[in-house]
């Protein structure tokens, strides 16, 4: 078990301490910071479905944006945050905002109404055009936390990042369960992707394991609650 990691009692949305801040791991895949009244969601990948029509002529169901926004809406209703931070790759590509349906666009506006809304730049949407409200930033500091899209190499105490779409796999008795997850060693944290069509990278992949040389726990999004799984129980793909 990773050093400096404290396990709280199991709960639907468990709580962790990171850099002196309280983090609630929300079952929806978002991170709630009660002391800052801030909701963080990462890798929304809005308009991923429609990007396939442009790129390769595949007509995926064009409902991923509204599905993602509906989940976000549900979390916003529950927490009523003063601030929402979208931790990068909010759109699947830079032209995503142009392809958004008017109804979805209105939904974004409604979510932003009365809140500080921060789009952190990601690698997919570094050059996102204007017109989707909110403000833009490369990174954001909140108390002892640094919010940025790509995790920095080397030690990064207090960093909260996304980009890697971590997934944990548990294989037992001939069955494998693969779920999105938060990954943390008690010092830094990588968030799961929030978007309806976002894929996942196994936490045992070098890209993720390399960030946590002293080991880590994964917090998998189950059907009814979040589960804390140790590295030893996590299978490779």
């Amino acid at each position: 078990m990773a050093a400096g990691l404290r396990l709280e009692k199991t709960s639907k949305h468990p709580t962790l301490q990171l850099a002196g801040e309280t983090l609630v791991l929300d079952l929806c895949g978002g991170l709630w910071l009660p002391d800052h009244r801030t909701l963080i969601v990462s890798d929304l990948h809005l308009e991923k479905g429609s990007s396939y029509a442009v790129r390769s002529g595949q007509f995926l169901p064009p409902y991923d944006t509204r599905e993602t926004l509906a989940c976000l809406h549900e979390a916003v209703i529950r927490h009523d945050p003063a601030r929402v931070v979208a931790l990068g790759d909010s759109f699947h590509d830079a032209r995503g905002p142009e392809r958004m349906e008017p109804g979805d666009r209105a939904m974004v506006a409604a979510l932003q109404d009365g809140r500080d809304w921060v789009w952190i730049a990601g690698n997919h949407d570094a050059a996102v055009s204007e017109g989707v409200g909110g403000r833009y930033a490369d990174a954001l500091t909140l108390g002892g936390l640094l919010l940025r899209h790509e995790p920095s190499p080397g030690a990064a105490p207090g960093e909260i990042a996304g980009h890697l779409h971590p997934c944990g796999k548990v294989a037992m008795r001939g069955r494998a369960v693969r779920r999105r997850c938060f990954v943390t060693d008690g010092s830094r944290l990588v968030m799961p992707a929030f978007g309806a069509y976002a894929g996942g990278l196994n936490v045992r992949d070098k890209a993720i394991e390399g960030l946590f040389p002293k080991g880590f726990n994964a917090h998998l999004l189950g059907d009814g609650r979040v589960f804390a799984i140790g590295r030893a129980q996590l299978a490779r793909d």
Partner: protein
Amino acid sequence: MAPTGAGKTLAGFLPSLVALAERRPQTLKPKGLHTLYVSPLKALAVDIARNLDAPIAEMDLPVRVETRTGDTPAHKRTRQISRPPDILLTTPEQLALLIAHREAAEFFSGLRCVVLDELHALVTSKRGDLLSLAMARLHRLSPGLAAVGLSATVREPDELRKYLVPQNQPLPPPSAGEGTLRSRGGEGQRDDSGESAGLHTGRISSGSRAPLSRPGLTAGPPSPAEGGERGAPPMADLVTVAGGAKADLRMLDLGRALPISGHTAWHSMPAIYALIKEHRTTLVFVNTRLQAEYTFRELWRLNEDALPIAIHHGSLDAQQRRRVEAAMAAGQLRAIVCTATLDLGIDWGDVDLVVNVGAPKGASRIMQRIGRANHRMDEPSKAYLVPGNRFEMLECQAALNAVEEAAQDTPDARLGALDVLAQHVLGMACADAFDPLDFYDEIVSAAPYADLTWESFEQVVDYVATGGYALRAYERFAKILRGPDGLWRVRDARTAQAYRMNVGTIVEAARVRVRLGRTLRGKPGTVLPKSGRVLGEIEDEFAETLTVGDTFLFAGETLRFEGLAEDECLVTRAPPDTDPAIPSYAGSKFPLSTSLAARVRALIADPFEWDRLPEQIGAYLQQQRRRSVLPGERDLLVETFPRGKRHYLTAFPFEGRLAHQTLGMLLTRRLERDGLRPLGFAANDYGIAIWTTRDVAERAALDPDFIGDLFAVDMLGDDLEAWLDESAMMKRTFRQCAVIAGLIERHHPGQKKSGRQVTISTDLIYDVLRKHQPDHLLLRAARQDAATGLLDVRRLGMMLERIQGRIIHRSLDRVSPLSVSVMLEIGRERVYGEGADEILAEAEAELLQEALS
């Protein structure tokens, strides 16, 4: 004239050869394609081309025969279009590509005859749907085309007869000689290729309007068949060839008790080995790849004489399979252990014994398998059924009875799949502009699509054009466009190219190669000299569940899983005599056929029949009658009993594993809602067992309707809907539809997979689509598949109807002989009804344990 094994082939081609020979004097203009032959197997097409060459050369006919398969080089394909052969041998997929070709109309304009081989096997799948649509197009491109189907005997020959001729045709003007359809079953002459003794080989030829003579085997003048009686669907003529000597088919009786459960038939291996020694060449058929691996290993353990015994199944490396087939054809092998991969195929010639290990599953399947042996008419085919357990003994007896009565149980005719139609619509837009009204008429002339509504057709066209979404997001990307002239055309060359890459209906489960790695443990390879070679492929799904160190049987060896690297499953040889730890990996599993299931129920219900069974099985049934009850032919027996700290409910519908798994899922939901706290269930072909924390019998004693309500038909309403939402089987079914219909790109073998975070998962697509457009075309297609495929919902529905008011519940204080059989499945099979959260909770508990220690 015909060599053994070529008689059947030649029969189909004789009219064409005659016509082509007669054509000789007047050919001044360039010849076009005259006859098309379609086979389900590439290898079969190649083999038949070889068999045709000989008589053509002997008779010195000016006839050019060529094959066109996935292996045909590009320059030859191009040349085949510009200078077509007289006879072309190909597969359904290649035919789909040909009719989507820009030159298709010209290419097929002179086509006179189509021969569809192994038609009985083709029509039961989506490939049959695709082929039927291609046939509809061919009938339009060359009116008067004669279609000949070659088939093993089937239960409903009329379905095949409809398949061959256009349906829904405007009534033809009365013509001379028109009459009612005539079936000439049994009048045909013997075919010296004779499928095998005791079998009937149907020759089905269309009522041809072309001046072709009948297949040479048939006596008498052609019988006209167009139109038929007013209102009756048009059908092709039927020619039945009587078989030769009756098959010598028996059950292998060891004279000692068989186990109650298990399918490996380990107790019979010495007897099977002895049979192999006594015969020239033996085909040992098994039902699953696991059984093939197991049987192969056991036979080699016994193989003191080092007889050449080989293994053949679909997961093995293709080159190895070709080597085995070549060795077999050359008469170098004494036995092959094989799965359904050899149900069809090249005639081996020298096989003199067929052994079927495990449950027969269906009477027609068994008859076709027996037919793989001995193609001589004067000798009976010899075959043994080898049951693996007592229930399989019943099933073997039921199969023997069915074969004795020549009762067929081939599946019902298919309803054409919508995903296949979507693929075809795009293909036809690639060939030429289409008028929707004409095209609709053409499609409903294909028997599987005869009942397609105009609305459904419009939806398919809309799906092909822009995805068929209520949210019109993709109008500007449309793949097919309707011009001002009202005709639909393909958008551009890129779309046509994408169609060609996607053609076909076989969606392989994603697989990974199994590569043998170098190992420092154990003895360096003694059986196989080189390490590092590819042994074959296993399903992604199976590989997913493996963890390093797991051992499993594959390619005749026990292998140790070392990890996944570069999309390959790396293995080493396990030390000798390691027992494989992982019991099973996905392989072909056929459900018990409906009619064989009914025969098994009848056998159990009728004590007078027990005399025909081996003694031990009669004693077993007697014991069941004493301890509980034996259900009547149409009854459903439900037993409840306590065992350990749990309460068990068993039921015996005899409807096959797939339907039982669906039943298990639905019953578990109901018991959950009723507060009985089910923990899991197990299913086999005959019944299911569910275990609960609370006592079901107690509840049933308080409420006499409880058990009846539990099995009420309304189970197939909301409960089914709720389950479909999350069923992995349903997601897999959806994925296949999505690939066939071109929603997502096909994964091509050898193509490198992109990283997991960039590929898009069909599971996610399924979830989103179900939520936002539950009536979407592809969800409809997936549901239609679920009715008969992995979920077998239709069969479950028929069973629930059958047993209403006929449920016999016995509350017992301990497990009955019948229930033991299904109880033994527990732990052997995966436990269903166990949610993802239970598994995660267990893994979490281990972490908590670690934190506390």
